[in-house]
């Protein structure tokens, strides 16, 4: 009786050690690699926009293709801040000692996607800001296994995330 109980426990332990442990270890590595790929792709995507002044549907599709090729589904948040210098010009006209107070107006993911779908590209100018945040929405295998041991709840349960942003350095009109 005592022996068979120990055997059952041993089988459980062995199963965890021989199956779950390597699987967890490998799935975490997979997530690391995905993280790497997503981080690189995001940086490249944003830097291309910054140096060309153009956000094209083609580039966006390529970017989405690269990140989804990791086997996960993602939520991509894009934000474009368009520089509006007009209030500045009016202020300095009235008072020469003041440097203009510039405004930014924002375009968000859905508006950007709509513009990309209808025009094929969004042209930006020097001084505009662009930022992209991406996080996975599915549960990766490593997340599943982790949840098996301890449950994580809430919005911040993503495993793969990347963020990059910066100022557009060139006018995209040419």
């Amino acid at each position, binding site marked *: 009786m005592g022996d068979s109980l120990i055997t059952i426990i041993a089988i459980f332990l062995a199963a965890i050690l021989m199956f779950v442990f*390597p699987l967890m270890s490998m799935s975490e590595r997979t997530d690391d690699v995905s993280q*790497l790929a997503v981080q690189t792709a995001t*940086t490249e995507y944003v830097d291309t926009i910054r*140096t060309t002044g153009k956000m094209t549907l083609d580039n966006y599709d390529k970017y989405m293709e690269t990140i989804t090729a990791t086997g996960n589904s993602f939520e991509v948040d894009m934000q474009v801040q*368009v520089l509006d210098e007009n209030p500045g010009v009016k202020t300095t006209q009235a008072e020469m*000692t003041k440097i203009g107070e510039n405004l930014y107006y924002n375009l968000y993911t859905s508006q950007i996607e709509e513009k990309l779908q209808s025009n094929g590209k969004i042209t930006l100018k020097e001084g505009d800001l662009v930022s992209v945040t991406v996080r996975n929405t599915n549960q990766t295998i490593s997340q599943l296994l982790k949840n098996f041991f301890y449950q994580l709840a809430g919005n911040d349960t993503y495993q793969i995330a990347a963020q990059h942003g910066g100022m557009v350095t060139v006018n995209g009109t040419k």
Partner: protein
Amino acid sequence: MKLQHLAIIFVIIILPISMVVTSYIQTQIDTISVQTTYSSKLQNATYDAIKAFQLNTINNRYSSVSDSKIRDIEASISTFFNSIGTKMGMDGIDQDALREYVPAMLYVMYDGYYIYGKYRNESTDSYQYGLKPYIYYSCRYIKGADDFVVNYSLDNAITIYGTVDGQYVTKSGYLINPNLVSNINETDKTLTYDGETIEKEVLSEQIVLLNEAGEVINTNSPVDYQYIVYQNAKIYYDPTATDGMNYFWYTANKKQKIYDQNILNYVQSMTIGGNLYSESAFQYYKQAYEFSTWVEEHLGNITQSDARDMNGDVISDFAVNTGEEKIFRLNNTNNPLLDGSTFNENRISVIRRSIQTNLATAIANYNQGGNQNYEFVLPVFTEEDWDKIVNNITVASFLQGIPIGSKFFNNYCIITNDKNEEVVTEDSLYIITQDGEVHLPTCKTITNSTVTGVYSNVTFERQSIHISDTYEVHYYPHANSKCYDCMVNVSETYDIDGLISGTITVFDPTQTGNQTINMKGTSLRKQYLAALGRERYDLYRTNDYFGV
């Protein structure tokens, strides 16, 4: 063997493998994340460099003079190293140590380029950093007895020197399609270019004046003055001057009255009915017409196959092969103002080849005199990179050989600038319409508007005057509110070549698909073409127009 033993042996085998794999992947991740942050830093530093160049040239009224330009470029390079040093300083790399990893920096200017890098100083027998001599975008052509060199530029200006038709010539000027010029009238200073009348025009801009004590004269707002450009400097007209000295230079933000009788005679002859008129646009097209006619007559048969390298061998590695198309035969299909013309394809090929060979040499030479165990080579530029380089003032920076994790960092960054006093590109003119708004020339909303002025985009940038440490004033030479369709949100524009050639294609949401609009005879096209000529004519050039 018991199952427990088997499990333990399995774990003993798997655990080290897992640890090694984890550590390896972590190193790779670290390497790539360092690589991307370095790339971003390089990009930001390069942007700082070109911004420094732009700010210095805009606020420097002599920026186009060679000595002054070298100073601006050296300031820009020091900005680059300051910027990248500060950014990398956080990562434990010192600013001077970083210099070792920058094999070259390329400054693409109007008619040539500078390469910054390490060179051998023979007098001290050591290597030192500095700007290498200016290199022109030149190409040698040999056909029969003709043997001459053409210096190209970022626009349609060329300089020719060498033997043409048995004579040694040195000529410089702008190439246009001479067939489009007609009705040249010297007395009225008018001519017709492609159906548009080019005539004298009144130019004005706002400036802030200081008195002799260095105080701002009119503290409420900048004052609007009419001006013309005479020998590369602006002469302003003040009709209200009480002492009768109506004309002045704007030197160190102060009025410098003009007493020189020759200059006064000229500006007085250009003052008609209380307005000061500029004839630059007329002169540009007239001289370009004369020059282009001469070029076509004497060099009309030159093709790409006549190009020779320094050994006199045929150059066969141009980026674009235009075959037997005649480079300087100017007509509607080869209009130097338009992209894709044979002239432009050759211009781009020459610039590209010159930069590529010299930059490759400069970077390869960097290996000498260095103590790194890394071999510096010129990276392969993409077509998009070249497109930026050959059309605008550009800074390219290279950062190579920094050890990161398991490999060496090697990247470059190319950033262009279209607001400077070096070159007037087709896109760098801004349009002021009747309602006082400023637009890009290719704005869709102004195709039918009445245009009241077209000026270089530099004059729409803020200028600053430093009066004391606590007091600075700022002003805009043209303080117009910017159009929301083209300047703030730059998406709604069309191709500039359409405006120059007279027919544009715009997407019309009310119609299905694209709509073609004839721009000939519009206020926009007339003023735009005049301004393109005027701004190019008024630009300082080392090789000024040599009469034909």
